[in-house]
Every structure is written in C-alpha cells, then in structure tokens.
C-alpha cells in the first residue's frame, strides 16, 4: 500500500498547499463576498478598503467575481477531467488488455484524436453545440463546455494507460487470476485497475489542468459558458472592457494569477505522482548532486596539482 502513496516532499507540499488554498478560496469566499453581478458599486475603483481587489467597469466587485469565477473554473475543470479520464480508461485499458483487433481499432481512433489540433477542434465543436437547436439552456452552460473539453482531451492519457495495461497484462498474477477462473471484466477492475491508481490519479490531474486552461482559452475567445462566471469569462470581460488600455490591472491580473497558480500547483502534485509511477525519478536529483560533487572534486584536485 505504502508504495502507492507519493512521498511527502517540498514539491508535493507546495503543490497540495496551492491547490488546497485555491479550492478553499473558491468554496468559502463566495459565501462571504457580495453578489458578483451587483453593479451598485462605483466603476473601476482601484483596490482599497471595501473593495480589496477593486471593481470592474460595470461596478462588479473583482474579489467576488474572482471567487465565484474560480469555483466555476474548478467545476468545469474537475468535470472535464473526469469525463476525459473515463474515456481514456475505456480506450486505453481495453485496448491494452484485450489487444489484437480491438487494440488496433481503439488506437486508430485515439491516434486520430491525437493528431487533430486541440484548440481549433474544441472551438469548432463549442461553436457548433452552442448553436445546435434542441439543447436549450444546456447549449451554453459550463456543463457543455466541460463535456466538449473532456471529449477532446482524453487521447494522450489513453496512450499512457494502454502502455501500462499492456505491461500489467503479462504479469503472472493476471495469469494466475485467469487460471483461478476470474472473468475478463473482473480481472481488469479488481486485479489491474488498483495497481494503476497512481497513474490514473496523474492522468486525472493532467485532465483537470487541460480543462481549466482550455476553458480559459474558450471563454477568452467568447465561446465559454454564458450563464456562469469563470476565470476565463472574467478575462474576456476585462478584454472587452479595455482593462489593459485603461490601466485597470486589478481586473485581469488576479484571474490570470489564479489560473497560473492552479496549473502550477496541480503540476507539482503530478510530479510527485510521477515519482510513484517511476521510482527512478526519485534518484535523479541525488544522481545530479553526486555528479556535481565529483566534478567539483576533480577541479579542486586539478587546481591543487
């Protein structure tokens, strides 16, 4: 069990702390701050008492918008990450475990998905579903944005999971389970999946990062959800409200910072998980240090000689 847990070190601590802080901020602050859509405040106030992060051109409180926007982005990110993980598990594990023709077909689909440029595809699909009749209020909701990003972002994870499933498939304990009489589905779910937990967690985090950034990109282009506030829609508002031109830095710097911090924090957690998947990565820093020390020793010797 212990070898499945990441080792507690500086990288992981900073990553977990950043992500936890942002999550708490997104969950707690919306309850305390004013209505993010209230335009009763003076427009374009710089940060100060009363409005810690100032106000927007429409008189919205930036702190309130930031908190609700972070919550919206996290919702889209986690949902999109989960959707892409489910698809990656289906394509990757099935292809890797069953092999043969199934592998060929599933990997063909995965590779097609992989070579299509991501953002343009997302833009086309997003623009299409938003104008599709019959979807009603769902069409421009954050739920739909999460689905679109999830459906386009699973291919990379599927390739990684397939490789690992192929390797686990040849383990003797899988053969032993077959001899014991276990069925294919149970072998995948009970014998193989638990040993993939660190890898699956890493792929989920990768999916969340991809979706958060993708949502920010889509929203900035005006293809994001219309009903809800996210970090991306804030940036879009700041852009259309000419925040840069008028010097209203407090309008676009906070959402940008949160997106960057969230991406960095999740990536740091992922590095720690990568070390669980490939323990050799743990030795890399020590190896570098050893090399550096011995090189320094050689230079010293040469200098004294």
């Amino acid at each position: 069990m212990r070898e499945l847990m990441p080792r507690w070190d500086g990288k992981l601590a900073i990553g977990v702390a950043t992500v936890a802080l942002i999550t708490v901020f997104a969950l707690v602050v919306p309850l305390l701050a004013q209505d993010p859509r209230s335009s009763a405040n003076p427009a374009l106030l710089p940060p100060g008492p009363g409005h810690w992060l100032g106000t927007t051109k429409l008189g919205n409180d930036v702190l309130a918008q930031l908190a609700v926007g972070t919550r919206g982005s996290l919702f889209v990110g986690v949902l999109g990450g989960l959707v892409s993980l489910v698809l990656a598990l289906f394509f990757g594990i099935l292809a890797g475990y069953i092999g043969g023709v199934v592998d060929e077909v599933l990997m063909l689909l995965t590779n097609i998905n992989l070579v299509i440029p991501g953002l343009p595809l997302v833009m086309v699909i997003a623009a299409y579903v938003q104008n599709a009749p019959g979807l009603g209020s769902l069409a421009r909701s954050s739920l739909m944005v999460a689905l679109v990003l999830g459906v386009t972002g699973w291919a990379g994870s599927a390739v990684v999971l397939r490789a690992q499933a192929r390797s686990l498939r040849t383990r003797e304990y899988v053969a032993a389970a077959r001899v014991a009489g276990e069925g294919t589905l149970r072998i995948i779910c009970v014998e193989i999946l638990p040993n993939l937990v660190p890898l699956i967690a890493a792929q989920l985090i990768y999916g969340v990062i991809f979706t958060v950034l993708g949502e920010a990109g889509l929203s900035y282009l005006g293809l994001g959800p219309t009903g809800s506030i996210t970090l991306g829609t804030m940036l879009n508002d700041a852009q259309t409200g000419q925040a840069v031109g008028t010097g209203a830095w407090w309008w676009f710097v906070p959402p940008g910072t949160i997106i960057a911090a969230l991406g960095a924090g999740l990536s740091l957690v992922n590095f720690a998980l990568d070390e669980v998947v490939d323990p050799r990565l743990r030795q890399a820093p020590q190896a570098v240090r050893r090399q550096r020390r011995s090189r320094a020793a050689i230079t010293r010797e040469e200098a004294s000689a």
Partner: protein
Amino acid sequence: MTPVDGVLSASHLVKTFRLRSGLRSTPVHAVKNVSFEVVRGRTVALVGESGSGKSTIARILAKLETPTSGQVLLDGVPTPTRGRALAEYRRRVQMVFQDPFASLNPFHSVAHHVERPVRIHHPELTSAQVAARVRDLLDRVQLSPADRFASRRPHELSGGQRQRVAIARALAPGAQYVVADEPVSMLDVSIRLGVLNLLADLQREQHLGVLYITHDLATARHFSDELLVMYRGDVVERGPADDVILRPQHPYTQALREAAADPERLGALRDEVRRSLRPLGQERSASA
C-alpha cells in the same frame, strides 16, 4: 477404475510461436509433438533446461495458451475452450507459478488470493463457510495462525510463505491436478525442501495428480514417480524416475546428470586434487 478415469493427458502437443521482426517472421518451435499422462495420486516430473518448452507445456495445460496442434484430455475428454465447461476444467486443474513475487497481486491480501477461487467455483457457500475454508486452506499449507496471515499483503511475506499462499490458491477450488512450474526455483535454497515436502504431503493426502516442472534432477528423482526429459521441445527420454536418472540413455540426460552437483563425485574430485597437490608440496619442502 477404467483406464481413462482420473487422467490428465497431453496428446501430441505442438506449439509454434511466430517471432516477428519487421516484415519477416520466423517460427519458433517451442514444443514439438509431446504426449504424456498425469494420473491422480502420482507425480510426473518434466525436466529440461531453460527454453526447452517445459513452461509452454505448463501454460497449455493451465489453458493460458492454446496448442498449435494436439490436445489436452481430461479423463479422455478433450478440454473445452470457454464457458461452463472451461470453469469446470479450471476447478479440477490448477497451476502453481514459478515466481511467487510476481504471481501474487501486490494490491490484495492473502485472504483475497485464496478466497476468490473458492467463491468462483463454489458460489453456493455462505461467507462464513468461505472464511472457514480459507482458514482451513492456510492451515493446510502451514501458514498458521491463519487469521494472522489472512490479512497480510504479499510484500509482508517471505518467498516461501508466498509460495505457500500460491499453493493454497491452487488447492482452493478443490483441484485434482496441479501443474507446478518450477515452484521452488525462485526460493532460497534453505526453504526449497520445506515447500516441496508440503507439495508431496498434500499430493498424498488429496490424491492429486502433479506435473512437477523443474531443471533440478535431484528433486525430480526424489519427488516424482515418472520422469520426462525435454530438450528443445522434444521429450528425449522418459521412464520411471530412478531408471532415467541412474541409467540415462540419451546423451542430453547424461550431460544433465554430469552437470548436477553430486556429493560423492565432488568428494572424489577433491581427493583427486589433493593427491595431485601432495607431491608438489613435498618437493617444495624437500628443496627448502
């Protein structure tokens, strides 16, 4: 007892693998036309070097590989490839793998490994009955107190203990035949005998038919009734274990026997070396 009752037999087994490198594919003849019978209550040893095709035969009998041609018969009936009949075959024919560090899932407890085959093949048992059976199986492979071992995970066990778990798992469905693929080759020399004796005891108690695959002639002779020597996919020699070992006919068997550590011969060698050294030493002392 009719002649075909209680027999697991391999009939003209052939297995050819295709090694693909680029566009070319070369056939590898792992097993060429091998036939033998394992009768309940007796042990057949299959001896040969690495790559001689022994493990392929084990995997064919355990239904992990399908033979290129030939078939496996249980009580004279060709073995099924799927469905209920395959489950029934698996209930009766089980396998112990070579590497106890690889054949147990690191994620699951000892209880899981032994309990699953019981549940699969005896769905009518209640949870309490299954638990009792698991305890009984662990006791039988001398992992006691069973309750303390049941909750452990493979990495908390020694190699010998792991292999005992693997044996308990093989017995769990109520197996009548056990294919043991080099069951002790990955274990420490000091505990090999314990595991082999356990297998032999269980075989006597439960009237098992055992196919003991090994490259160790000494244990093959000691633990088996019949012995088959495999070389490059062919059975080159077979017969009662003592005959094959004491009066080997095929040059390969003779070479195997020569290569095996023989205490008497080692002693003789040592004497020879000593004799040839003594005059040297005497000469030196004389000249000094």
